[in-house]
């Protein structure tokens, strides 16, 4: 990383970290939403951006994670943050089971299947599947998260929890991108046949991308449940999947910085447009079209990575 770029990143991070000091509670809450969507979009970016698998049902995995956390917390009194790994695991396993029979489908067929999975999950939740999801009303009374003995309840406290998770995710996913695993996913996206010809087990990597991306959505679901203390199926409808899909493509599929920038725009812009009142979604739709027309490869297109022989040797295994 060049010095200038490093400086810019540090400056941005510092600015963000100090944000709760000079923003009001509402604005911090918007930033929290952006952070949650950022987490979700980074997970989807693995599937859609890095591996090029059309997934428009990401909200399903988000829902599975959130409900796992909520059920464990309200029925078995497990502290909400302790459920984090478990809800990630459940969402990841769910994704593996669902994706296993359909992951070989060609792009658009996979797209509609994932839309279908998202809808089936939402309808199952509305219909109170297993008698545990509380039907259309959802689950309420989820306890506040506790970290090092501090109960997190105010927006700025959630801000540091959520954005801490985002920072950790960025670090992990940047490492992943440069690993053998990340390069295999990119190869898969660019040319599946050539990837298979080079000895890449395409089915394995596709499923791994799905599982990992979904696990991240599941963990974001836990944070969401903890923040809202009440969840219902409507929080995980088709619209959420569409928004996440737009964030990843608008940001420049496969580019972590781009995806985060797009999360800021897609979630933040409608808030800025509040003065347009009921016309704000109209403006939003128009902005989406215009942005795609002028930046067809996304705001920050993913560039082909450069790998020195040294990093390649380190990334082996």
């Amino acid at each position, binding site marked *: 990383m060049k010095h200038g770029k490093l400086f810019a990143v540090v400056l941005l991070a510092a600015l963000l970290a100090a944000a709760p000091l000079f923003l009001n509670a509402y604005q911090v809450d918007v930033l929290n939403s952006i952070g949650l969507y950022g987490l979700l979009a980074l997970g989807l970016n693995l599937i859609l951006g890095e591996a090029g698998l059309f997934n428009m049902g990401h909200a399903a995995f988000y829902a599975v994670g959130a409900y796992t956390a909520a059920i464990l917390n309200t029925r078995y009194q497990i502290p909400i943050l302790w459920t984090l790994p478990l809800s990630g695991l459940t969402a990841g396993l769910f994704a593996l089971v669902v994706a296993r029979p359909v992951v070989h489908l060609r792009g658009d067929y996979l797209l*509609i299947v994932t*839309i*279908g999975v998202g809808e089936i999950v939402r309808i199952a939740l509305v219909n109170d599947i297993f008698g545990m999801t509380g039907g259309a009303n959802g689950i309420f009374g989820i306890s506040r998260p506790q970290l090092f003995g501090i109960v997190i309840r105010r927006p700025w406290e959630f801000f540091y929890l959520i954005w801490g998770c985002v920072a950790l995710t960025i670090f992990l996913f940047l490492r992943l991108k440069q690993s053998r695993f990340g390069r295999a996913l990119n190869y898969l996206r660019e040319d599946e046949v050539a990837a298979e010809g080079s000895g890449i087990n395409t089915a394995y990597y596709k499923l791994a991308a799905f599982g990992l991306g979904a696990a991240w959505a599941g963990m974001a679901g836990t944070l969401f449940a903890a923040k809202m203390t009440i969840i219902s199926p409507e929080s995980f409808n088709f619209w959420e999947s569409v928004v996440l899909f737009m964030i990843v*493509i608008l940001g420049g599929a496969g580019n972590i910085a781009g995806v985060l920038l797009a999360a800021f725009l897609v979630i933040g812009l409608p808030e800025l447009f509040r003065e347009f009142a009921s016309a704000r979604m109209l403006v939003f739709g*128009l902005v989406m*079209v215009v942005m795609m027309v002028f930046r*067809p490869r996304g705001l920050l297109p993913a560039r082909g990575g450069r790998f020195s022989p040294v990093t390649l040797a380190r990334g082996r295994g």
Partner: protein
Amino acid sequence: MEEFFQQLTNGLAVGGIYALIALGYTMVYGVLKLINFAHGDLFTYGAYLGLTLLTSLALTDRLGFALGVLVLVLMVMGLVAVLGAILERAAYRPLRESPRLSAVVSALGASIFLQNTLMLIYGARFQVYPDNILPATTLHLFGLYLPLMRVLIVLASVAMMAALYLFIQKTRIGTAIRAAAIDQGAARLMGIDVNRVILLVFLMGPALGGAAGLMVGLYYGQINFTMGWVYGMKAFTAAILGGIGNIPGAMVGGLLLGVIEALGAAYLSIAWKDAIAFLVLILILIVRPTGLLGERVADKI
């Protein structure tokens, strides 16, 4: 048995509507490999334009029921077709050389835009079609009592599908559309104006979708500005079910989906109605990965 046939005919009517919308998805996909997510909203425009024209021009009062509705259908189809062409010009043509998913996001943006335009014009509440335009006749056919509207919708959608099929198969322009769908580059070399083919597809698909919107208005009596998403999703499912890009596939897929949904809602569970369609889709795609009538395309290396 009475109940079964009632559900079956109802399913065929809904399926006919799905099929008409699905044709728009599949034709655009065939030529451009683009999922036109705004297509469902063009369908909604058909329903709203139909309502406005119906109430403001009083067509059925002046021309009588049969001629009035026919004129209305033609007007709605024409207007929605123009809208489709504008959409193509504004949101899709600039992105034709871009990655495919960018066009999908542009389509989603256009969909949001169209939907909210309707909301601002008509308001967010359900709009109701006047119920005195159609004679509330019940037909006695094959020992069944069927609402006239249901029979008309099945007949009209089948007639439109037949006309489209003949047009695509038998005319020179239809041949050009099929050629452009198979290989745009080669079609261009054979002297086909691919841009005109694309424009034509964006006129025909929305026209059919607009007609379907009008049918929904007349059949159910009430319309909402968000209904395009639900119908669009179902119709897209139907197009995939039949094999996307395949015109007879969209017809078969639409009718099949309508019938499965009606029977599923009646005999299995109404609460799971919307999930049944997707479950069937997933099961069929597991067995036939390119849909019922979709060709197996060999990957080019």
